[in-house]
């Protein structure tokens, strides 16, 4: 038996064979359930999987949620950021390996806040493992040790939705964020509010990858 590469906790919120697959990435301090409603709305009738970060947020000795990285959204700890990216990449490969066909259907990432940052980072690092990305309240911080993109995005569909935090020299946000991903080869759509999410994935083509 082939063991998965990823050690992340995950839940299949909805599993419908033959449909588009959305993987959600939660906000800081949330459990994976925090993205269930958004994930289901983003992919009506389709498969939705919730992924949970490994690093706990503690109150006393209790884990009260999880975080993708330590440090503020505008200034993540690079080491934790890198480990989180690596764990998500492992999970994407696991999802490919779970498909018996020779052509694996690639998922969409849907993230909010910290999860949006991670979704965008994965779009810039592993665009060939994704069908698209929905980033809610998106920012892409400057992360020392990492200089996106790692690959040309080849028209990867990207939806930037929700609030757009103020742009600064520490983060890409708003128009600069959209421009950057466009320049890197992404097919960027900007939506001002959440209704832009509903059904968006259904309009995007499913990208394939040989296993």
């Amino acid at each position, binding site marked *: 038996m082939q063991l998965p590469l990823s050690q992340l906790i*995950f*839940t299949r919120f909805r599993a419908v064979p033959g449909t588009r697959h959305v993987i959600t990435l939660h906000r800081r301090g949330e459990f*994976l*359930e925090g993205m269930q409603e958004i994930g289901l709305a983003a992919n009506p009738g389709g498969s939705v999987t919730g992924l949970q970060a490994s690093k706990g*947020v503690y109150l006393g*000795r209790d884990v009260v949620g999880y975080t993708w990285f330590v440090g503020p959204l505008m200034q993540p700890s690079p080491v934790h950021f*890198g480990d989180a990216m690596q764990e998500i990449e492992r999970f994407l490969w696991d999802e490919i390996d779970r498909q018996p066909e020779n052509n694996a259907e690639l998922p969409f990432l849907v993230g909010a806040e910290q999860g949006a940052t991670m979704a965008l980072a994965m779009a810039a690092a592993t665009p060939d493992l994704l069908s698209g990305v929905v980033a809610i309240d998106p920012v892409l911080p400057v992360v020392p040790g990492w200089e996106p993109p790692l690959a040309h995005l080849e028209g990867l569909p990207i939806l930037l939705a929700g609030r757009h935090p103020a742009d600064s020299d520490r983060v890409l946000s708003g128009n600069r964020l959209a421009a950057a991903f466009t320049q890197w080869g992404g097919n960027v759509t900007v939506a001002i509010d959440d209704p832009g999410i509903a059904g968006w994935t259904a309009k995007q083509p499913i990208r394939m990858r040989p296993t």
Partner: protein
Amino acid sequence: MVESTRESRLRISRRGFLKAGGVSAAMAAGMGGAVGAIPFRASRAFAQQQWDEEYDVVVAGSGAAGLVAAITAKAMGSDTIVLEKGAYVGGTSLVSGGGFFIPNSKQMQELGYEDPRDERLKYMARYSWPHLYQPDHPTLGLPQHDYDMISTYYDTAPEVIDFLEQVGAATFAVQHIGGSVPTVPNVDYMDHFEENVPKEAGTLVTLDADGNEGGGGVMIANYQTWADNNDMEIRLNHRVERVVLDDDGAVIGVEVSVPDSAATPQATPAQTTVKTFRARKGVIFGTGGFVKNDDMMHHLMPFPHLQGCGAPTNEGDFQRIAFALGAQQGNLHNVYRNEGIYEQGIASPSAYNCIWYHKGDSMLIVNGQGTRFHNERRNYQDRPMAHFNWDPNNATWPNLLGYLVYDQRVAENWAGNFPYPQLGADASYVIKGDTLEELGTAIRERVNSLSSVTVGMQLHDDFETNLVAEVEKFNGYARDGKDLDFQRGEHGYDEGWQSQPSVENPTATPWPSSDQPLKSMYPLADTGPYYAMIVAASAVDTNGGPVIDTNGQVLSYNGDPISGLYGAGNAVASPGVNAYWAGGMTLGNAHVWGYAAGKHASSKSDS
């Protein structure tokens, strides 16, 4: 080899992130970094005929030890700066539970607890030095220095809290056990010692803006806010590499490496600039231990701690600087321990979670022979020591890896409480079997599949058989209410912290919460499914290094303080040695000795 081929597909490397995260490039390559001490005449400040910047007190590290030292010095009138090696403020403290051990606090007294000095010192002495402790001896059997240190801890701890409240750094309260019993104060870790009078309420926390008990994030945010409001700069990505000495050997400043620009995954070690900081009154290190320095851990630890949850920047910089100065070394073989999920630690070293305590009742942990080896409900400092029980016949640690075995009752009742996944969720590290025999076989297959598990860590031939027998014995103990092997549930701590079902899934508890004699033990179900996880002893951080005096000054081997050099928290030898007197021992040390160092340095005349 199949696994390595699959891993080789990964594009994202840790290496660039490690370098940029304040972790030295040399460390990332597995070597030691260039840290130490130099005379002023050999320093960059001498060469350029001036210091780049001058302060009264320079503090290295922005965790609890560093920030408390800095707040104290600044509030007492010293011009103070904090230099943080990492890319964020807070170090290990930021991701901690946020509690700290403060005996005899005003806050515990207000709740009606008494914490008399004589008894508390006896408790501390007995827990830390069971082989020396004599209750009727003037120093309780301890060497004078050790007695002075625990006395100072008791006397100073409440003063620290009062001071921090007075200067407006934070508001404090007694920490309560979380989960479903928020009104019960923390139970001390050896509550059953007769010397322990209050038994509980020894742990304080900072409160957030709404008056709620906060974790480490709230504590650091409070202290960082104070720094912002009082013009005390915290500078990130500043790694103190060397202390600078005057002709008499006193520490008068530091040399600091600052990256010129962001490192990239493709780049070789980041280019850095050396900057010099004069410290007119003293340099205080609160830079943590060396849990993330593989070389030091390999050579200094008598036992293999498999992963740790300390900050990635805890590479032993201060320990090496102090040793280069001839500082006394102490407690280098000890750590603040924990347990964690072995496979998770291998996959994501920085995202590793510590298991502070094992929730659930129908659960047990067995070793590679399939037998229990400790009371699974003891505290996270003492419990993992059982992983290092030596087998003299086979020259190995048979308990090095533990196998946490549980049933559906625990999987549902404690769902979502780490490390148990939420209801309906899955994780690769959870091993499953419909019967105990199947579970045993699945555990063996998993162990054999892990290339990191060496010959000396593999399962015994009779593991599966022994596991079934051990569960049967455990179930008998649970029904009788008496754990004849490890006395699980006999003491307050065992049940006080760990028996509460999940509050994350309040409606998903179809099980009786407790219909057995002990809250901490429940027979495993007669039928499956059963589950297991591989657990190992890990380190929160090390707690050894230079020995300090009651003022937080680093001592040389002749017993005199090294002028101008201070340390606190996990950067120095813990005065408690191996003991964990109560919840928050680590942050307690950070507060007490950070305060002592800041106060003493601030009281000095300029050098």
